[in-house]
């Protein structure tokens, strides 16, 4: 019998189970050659345009209007006109629109997922299984609040603020739109939203969803453009509320420009989250959580677990398991259903990731990536980890916003907490241990808006999300998320 069951030396079947390409069909989404601005319920062409590309191939997807100051004026004016009638609607009527939008998003989720992957570079598995279900869930969730605002704990008759100026990033284009628009509409505000320059398409398709849902004109306006468009929008005297998700640098500028006005402001900014693995952690699931924490969405996640803190007594074991797991990550075509890591969103972001990674190596940290073939065209970066990182390294302090993990160690729970909190940021953190009392004790001491225990990057519309310190202020999601839009 033993002879019939030879122990294989080497891997005779290494090539046995190569997954054949399993591409999602691109034809489920039709991209027009150009897109205008969505103002007052209709698309109109702007004067100038810019191109948006597929970061996986550098192919130009379409041309999009670049909104100038007059365009922003028109959008804000439309939102102001719509504000009165929209806020006067009974909550139950506004809920109907939101429910309708949520259902249309579900119906069109395949189309929107493909579009999101094309424009952003994220794997279709994530846009299909994470982004789109969460987008619909956010609209469903806030639809439910629309007629219950008097019971939300913000007084018996909470009032909307008026017009919300919303500026969102490129990492989760449609999901960040949902986080912004769903609570604003549920509370009776109208919005002017500016999607990121490199990912404007899903917001423009969302405009079409609004038309399909017969949302009254002017309630949602979408202006596309770059930093200048965003600046015109947040500085516009006609808006009552500014909501921004993006870099701490831009957030600081916005806070400065809003200061001294009556505008309300929420900021959701950068992060450098600690993911803490204690020696009694469920190792295999912790490794999954580490991978999900930093390689989900190419690491383009503000709450990414980019600082891994491993207790020294299990350091070798965890690191070995992590490296082994990283060799199974599938990097490549975002539309392939088996891809785990897609393309970096833009050339500029790729340059930033490369720069900081080079700094990491120069400062003496050890760089490691699994063997990994990257496509010739497009923007790509192999999943990377740095060991031998200390608190003094730039890669342990600055947000890289890419698939780059810095690995540090600690000896005691107190040291773990100290190191985790030793950052200007405070958006999220993770704790891995089988000991319930330790979860509670450590979570209590971490200065981070979200603390995950034995999981990471888990989102739910019912759960508030937001930062401490330089990670911003205000909360999105849950009952708490209503507060930012109510007076």
């Amino acid at each position, binding site marked *: 019998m033993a002879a*019939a069951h030879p122990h*294989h030396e080497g*891997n005779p079947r290494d090539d046995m*189970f190569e*997954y*054949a390409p399993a591409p999602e069909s691109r034809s489920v989404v039709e991209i027009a050659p150009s897109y205008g601005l969505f103002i007052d319920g209709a698309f109109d062409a702007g004067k100038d345009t810019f191109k948006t590309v597929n970061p996986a191939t550098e192919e130009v997807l379409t041309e999009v209007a670049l909104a100038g100051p007059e365009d922003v004026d028109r959008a804000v004016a439309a939102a102001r006109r719509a504000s009165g009638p929209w806020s006067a609607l009974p909550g139950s009527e506004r809920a109907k629109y939101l429910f309708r939008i949520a259902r249309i998003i579900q119906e069109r989720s395949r189309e929107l997922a493909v579009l999101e992957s094309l424009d952003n570079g994220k794997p279709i598995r994530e846009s299909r299984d994470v982004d789109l279900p969460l987008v619909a869930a956010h609209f469903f969730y806030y639809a439910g609040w629309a007629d219950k605002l008097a019971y939300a704990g913000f007084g018996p008759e909470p009032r909307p603020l008026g017009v919300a100026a919303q500026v969102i990033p490129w990492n989760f284009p449609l999901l960040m739109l949902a986080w912004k628009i769903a609570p604003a509409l549920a509370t009776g505000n109208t919005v002017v939203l500016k999607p990121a320059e490199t990912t404007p398409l899903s917001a423009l398709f969302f405009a079409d969803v609004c038309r399909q849902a017969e949302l009254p004109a002017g309630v949602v306006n979408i202006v596309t453009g770059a930093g200048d468009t965003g600046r015109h929008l947040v500085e516009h005297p006609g808006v009552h509320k500014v909501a921004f998700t993006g870099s701490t640098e831009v957030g600081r500028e916005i806070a400065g420009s809003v200061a001294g006005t009556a505008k309300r402001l929420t900021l959701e900014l950068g992060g450098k989250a600690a993911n803490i693995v204690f020696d009694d952690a469920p190792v*295999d*699931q912790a490794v999954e959580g580490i991978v999900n924490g930093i390689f989900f969405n190419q690491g383009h996640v503000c709450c990414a677990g980019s600082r891994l803190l491993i207790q020294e007594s299990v350091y070798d074991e965890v690191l070995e398991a992590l490296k082994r797991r990283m060799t199974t990550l599938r990097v490549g075509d975002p539309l392939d*259903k088996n891809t785990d890591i897609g393309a970096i969103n833009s050339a500029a972001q790729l340059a930033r990731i490369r720069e900081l990674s080079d700094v990491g190596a120069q400062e003496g940290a050890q760089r490691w990536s699994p063997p990994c073939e990257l496509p010739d065209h497009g923007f790509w970066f192999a999943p990377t980890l740095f060991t031998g990182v200390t608190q003094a390294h730039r890669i342990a302090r600055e947000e890289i916003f890419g698939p780059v993990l810095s690995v540090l160690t600690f000896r005691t729970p107190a040291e773990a907490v100290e190191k985790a909190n030793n950052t200007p940021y405070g958006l999220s953190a993770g704790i891995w241990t*089988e000991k319930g009392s330790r979860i509670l004790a450590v979570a209590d001491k971490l200065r981070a808006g979200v603390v995950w225990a034995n999981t990471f990057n888990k989102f739910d519309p019912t759960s508030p999300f937001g930062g401490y310190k330089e990670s911003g202020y205000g909360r999105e999601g849950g009952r708490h998320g209503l507060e930012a839009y109510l007076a």
Partner: protein
Amino acid sequence: MTATSLPTGDLRSALHGLPGVDKVGVEARASMLATRSIKTTAKAQAIDLAIRMVDLTTLEGADTPGKVRALSAKALRPDPADPSCPPVAAVCVYPSMVGVAAPVLAGSGVHLASVATAFPSGQAPLDVKLADTRDAVAAGADEIDMVISRGAFLSGRYDQVFEEITAVKEAAGAAHLKVILETGELGTYDNVRRASWLAMLAGADFIKTSTGKVPVAATLPVTLVMLEAVRDFRARTGRQVGVKPAGGIRTTKDAIKYLVLINETAGPDWLDPAWFRFGASSLLNDLLMQRTKLTTGHYSGPDYFTLD
């Protein structure tokens, strides 16, 4: 932890020193891997591999020599219409039926597995279990699928379980020993991991999920935990142990999910009938149906595939 070097008296601390398994995490990982999309050439390879991994099983009170002969013939030529279709890995029967299957399978390379040790409950004295094992081997079985005493395991009598496995291993002689953990009765993934290590430490050649006789049989997350166990065990001891999910795997789609699980957990070394088996009966015909679909481009009705 160096479990293998520990005397059995330390079994408890060895098994309880294994890292825990987070239920939510392991289930999420298994369901993520289940979304892998296996198409065209990869699918064709996967189907043939899955056929070669089937332990074609009948374990019914109603089994008769006629039924077992038919099953054995099918094991040799699963698709009489297509000579390129490989045979299955083994036939799996009750000890009383081993003598019937043996002459049919002799010299074919298809193994003959017998359940033993008071299958499926394991609730019999040790000498009965050993006699059961010896009889099956004497009748021609070259693989023994034994059950552990879940009662002993759940009450923390790890030494007893260990000693039973060692004794059965000895009684089985040259026959390959598969140890059935009956994971559906173990209750937690932590227990699945501990029972896996216990069986491997005691000398199991394979660890197997289930008898197929309790409501919850093989599941993806349970198999994932067992694949992690054999991977870690080999890394620590150098000895490779096989894995056999059994019960409830009925479709090609299911089988391919298991192959993906192997590929991305234990690794390609386990993508071989020597190291992975499916304990199944109706699975084979679905694999054959899908195989025919891939080669001919159309589906054939069930009448075109033989009854077991």
